[in-house]
């Protein structure tokens, strides 16, 4: 059977700041929201044509994307925390607030 992916949607994960992989060390946790799923149902004529022109080599050696991406449309507010060395940090545009196929 096929791997059937859910359509693009907002998911969330509770992680510690250290696990964000941004280099901060802190045991505080944040709610990390991200976009996941397929955008098959959001393909447009643009994508089909772009794909076709790339395959016919009407467009070559260019960095193009011929399928919609499941990406954040808006981001959550900034998040702040006290790190292991008692210093305060604030990170913006860390977590997605809304997702969509673009």
């Amino acid at each position, binding site marked *: *059977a096929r791997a*059937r992916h859910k359509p693009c949607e907002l998911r969330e994960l509770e992680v510690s700041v250290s696990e964000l992989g941004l280099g901060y060390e802190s045991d505080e946790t944040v709610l990390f929201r991200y976009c996941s799923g397929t955008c098959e149902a*959001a393909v447009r004529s643009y994508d089909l044509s772009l794909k076709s022109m790339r*395959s016919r080599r009407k467009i070559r050696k260019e960095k193009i994307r*011929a399928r919609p991406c499941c990406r954040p449309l808006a981001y959550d507010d900034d998040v702040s925390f006290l790190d292991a060395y008692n210093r305060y940090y604030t990170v913006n545009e860390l977590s997605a607030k809304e997702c969509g196929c673009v």
Partner: protein
Amino acid sequence: LYFPRKEYLENVYIDEPAGTPLLHIHALKDSREEGAHFHLCQNRIISRARSHENNWFQIKENTGLLYLSKSLDREDFNMLSVGNWMPLSKVMLYVFLSSHPFQEKECDSATRTAVFLSLINATAPACSSLTARQLCFTEMDLSFHIKENKPPGTFHQLQLPSVHHLCQNLSISYKLLAAEGVPFRYNESNTSVRVTQHLDREERERYELIAKCTVREGLREMQVEVPFLVNVLDEDDSPPFLPNGTDSADAVVEFNRKEGTVLSTLTVYDADTTPIYPLESSRRKYTGTIITDDPWISEMFRVEHIFDEIHFSPNGSQVRGTRHEYKLVLNKSISVTEHRSFQLDVLVNDTEFQGPERSVMLHFNVSILPVSIQFSNITYQFTVNRNAERFAQIGKICIENCMKFRGVNITYKLLSPNASCYPVSILQGREDKYGSLYVNDSSALRRPECKEIQYTVQATDKQSRKHTKTLLTVVLEGTLLKKEEDCPDSCAISKHRAECEECGGLGVLTGRCQWRQGSGKGITTNYSTCTPSIKTCPDGICDVVEGRDPAVCPQDCTSGNIIGGHGKGIGNLGIKSGHGICYCFPRQNCYCEKDDVKEQLCDDVCK
């Protein structure tokens, strides 16, 4: 009295001397004793932007000769052209007609014709500079209309009064060329043209002659020919008549009992024309009334009258006449129980014809047959695969002759069976004449104890409340297949045969979707797609079962976006034609694309 033309045209140059004759207007008689008097009412002349006192043009009351009473100078020209943007200034005046000397108050009701004078901002050209065409004829087309059944009379003069007046050194002569036996005479001495007898439009309605002009100057001779057309105006002088004498017809009401149904048609001819412009006046002229004192008949039937122009060919030439069609129409839907026979008479009356036989009686032999509401079979049996999914269409059921019925509203109902198994229901589209049986509860199909289910089907005629019943047996068959995970709920989502045929979906009959392999190039109705049942989807119809859930057959029912080469179905519903493979995400978009684009969907730089 009447004018042989609706309007006249003539050119007027600057500084032409007073007294210059411009135009000779004729009148034709309605009766022999009439004498024509011409008059310019209110003496107004209308230019593009305003109406002025007419100081320049007068008409001879007895001869109809329009002439310049005062020369038109440049001042006058400018004044009459104010507000006119075109290089050529046109003014208009009305000439009125009466059979006795004029009183001013008669002007409003008198017959009139319009004279359009093109004022040319230049002096009259020398005769030598005029072409033969200009010497012989003006820009006005020589086209006249003469009423039928009216006395003879002169209706035109070929020579141009102004040319005749100014170019007297030239010899201009005319001839009227025509076929034999035409009722017109040309008088060489004064170039007048006469109609010599009563015309009969029903014999001939158009005469096409040729006016030939010869200009002689010394030894030289020039000739010009222009068409000279006479149209004969119609009068209502012909009674209605029946083609091949048919004045009666049968009208049988059986299965088609719907309001508006045309039961029978009878035709009446009339040699006169009946203009469809303006429509209503002609319809009122030719009436068709049902002659009855039975209120039921008046309530249940009506007569519709349509007419169109046909051509008669009395003696080789074509003349227009009218075909009137009287249709006996059901004014209301008739109950299935109604059963009677009678003769219905319609009186057709040509209200404007002054003479005997102005009306004709038509007879419709009406017979209304009863129709029975019954199922042809005593019982019906359908088999259903246990792997069928919800909205699987099992079959259609309806009473005898159901497809022939019109205006008879039969509703179908399944009476709940005794057993606990109740997998099947029935639906009926607004326009459908049958009931559609479909799986409504697929879980019952999976239960071993449900093997054979008995239903009672009831059909009821809404109007008469008459109803009938029959037995319906649903036999479950087939062994249960393993349920595939990760299968979508709609077959239409699958883009390839493999993923299509390994999954089920709403509406499947045997537990698996069916792949329809299309063929053909470009955008074709035979596109490839995954469907619950090739027989019903896609078939261009979003039927009542498919319409219950967008996931059953979006190929027929989607009203959303269709991306890729496609053509939409009737009423913008569904995919009528598509390019390559069409697949849909129910309640979202559908796609039609060629599958040959096998290249890897690379996100990064494509080498």
